[in-house]
């Protein structure tokens, strides 16, 4: 991650508008996983569910802590992996919902 221009801060998480500095501060406080950074700063909780930022956050954590990127990238995914309206989740379509 190029630490490009120290003066200017900029977003890492586009959806929730979380900046590089906010993420770095949280890491400095000792939170070294994507999920922890997400829970504190909301980075990755937005409409795109971390698609634009989680890999970048992992790289920032890895660079700042020295942890191997492979280890930091071990994050969990939850269903549904697409954003859906609640109404859609209730009505099960033409399949027998009771069989689940």
């Amino acid at each position, binding site marked *: *991650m*190029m*630490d*490009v*221009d120290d003066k*200017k*801060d*900029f*977003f*890492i998480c*586009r959806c929730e508008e979380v900046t*590089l500095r906010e993420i770095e501060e949280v890491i400095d406080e000792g939170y070294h996983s994507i999920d922890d950074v997400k829970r504190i700063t909301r980075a990755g909780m937005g409409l795109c569910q971390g*698609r*634009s*930022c989680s*890999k*970048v956050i992992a790289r920032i954590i890895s660079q700042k802590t020295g942890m191997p*990127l*492979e280890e930091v*990238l*071990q994050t*969990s*995914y*939850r*269903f*549904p*992996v*697409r954003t*859906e*309206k609640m109404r*859609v*989740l209730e*009505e*099960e*379509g*033409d*399949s*027998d*919902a009771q*069989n*689940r």
Partner: protein
Amino acid sequence: MMLEREVVVVGAGPAGLSAALEAARAGASVLLVDENSKPGGQLFKQIHKFFGSRDHRAGVRGIDIGAQLLDEAQQLDIEVWLDAEVCGIFNQCDVWIVRDKDRSVTVRARRIILATGATENAINFPGWSLPGVMGAGAAQTMINLHRVLPGQRFLMVGSGNVGVIVSYQLLQAGGSVEAIVEAAPRLGGYGVHTAKVRRAGVPFYTSHTVLEARGTDHVESATIVQIDSAWKPIGGTEKELSVDTICIAAGLTPLVELAFAAGCESFYSPLLGGMVPWHDRSMRTSIPSIYIAGDISGVEEASTAMEEGRMAGLSAAHSLGYLDHEQFTTGFQAAEARMLALRSGMFGQKRRDAKAAIIAHERG
């Protein structure tokens, strides 16, 4: 009674289409699902002629290969659900699909082939969230699929094949590419691609990156800067470019949400794009009912994705009892040989070794 299918293929791009074709040809009942309103994935943006040999349909444009695959799918009467988003996989076989953003359906599949592709990586710099900064793939989608130029003066960030081919296609669409910057000291893409845009007057800047993008409601200019071996900007080398669009071609990351949420074991392969589901030679993951093919299994090209799709389709159908041993091995080994032919030479060998490392990995 719950809907049932023998093979559910997720993603109708080059890999998914090829997997569905092979599985259907082998006799399995196949359901092909894609979240877009049109199938084909990347193929219908790739207006250039493909590399490889005659077996790989080399010399044919991606858009025409896509059309051929769709015709074959129609002839085989493969069931295709478009505008259908797969939201989850339960018990390693129940595929939860939301159709038209409107209704939930669960399909019990005996085999699932995940061909969900990859997503573009981000490069962050001040101003990178301004309108006018977009993925190189996004620009390619706009010009080749929607026939709209998202801007007039472009800066391309990244000199891999994607960055260079999209730069060439921007010129074909009538845009002007002011520069291609590459952070590494050497250019990434094939020499024949870089030569096409260089002789068209597009300059390359190695060991350069974007320092900042500026504009109020949209990109108006960008500053590029030389970087040292530690990737730090070198003061005094800033160059301001008057551009209205910045395309980011910084590689792709496999889309693995479905595979990992379903429980597939992961393997880390930086060269192939990061975390990928572990898989064996037959493209089967750590979950026996789930196969993968294409960029999800490691970012390569559409031509390798098609061969991996054929291998996955054949393996899935064979595991359900279709094709006798001899039919299966001939078809599978032919596809594998075509794929390995693509994974050779100064560019392909590295990918071949990275894939071999995944397959050789003894799972815990």
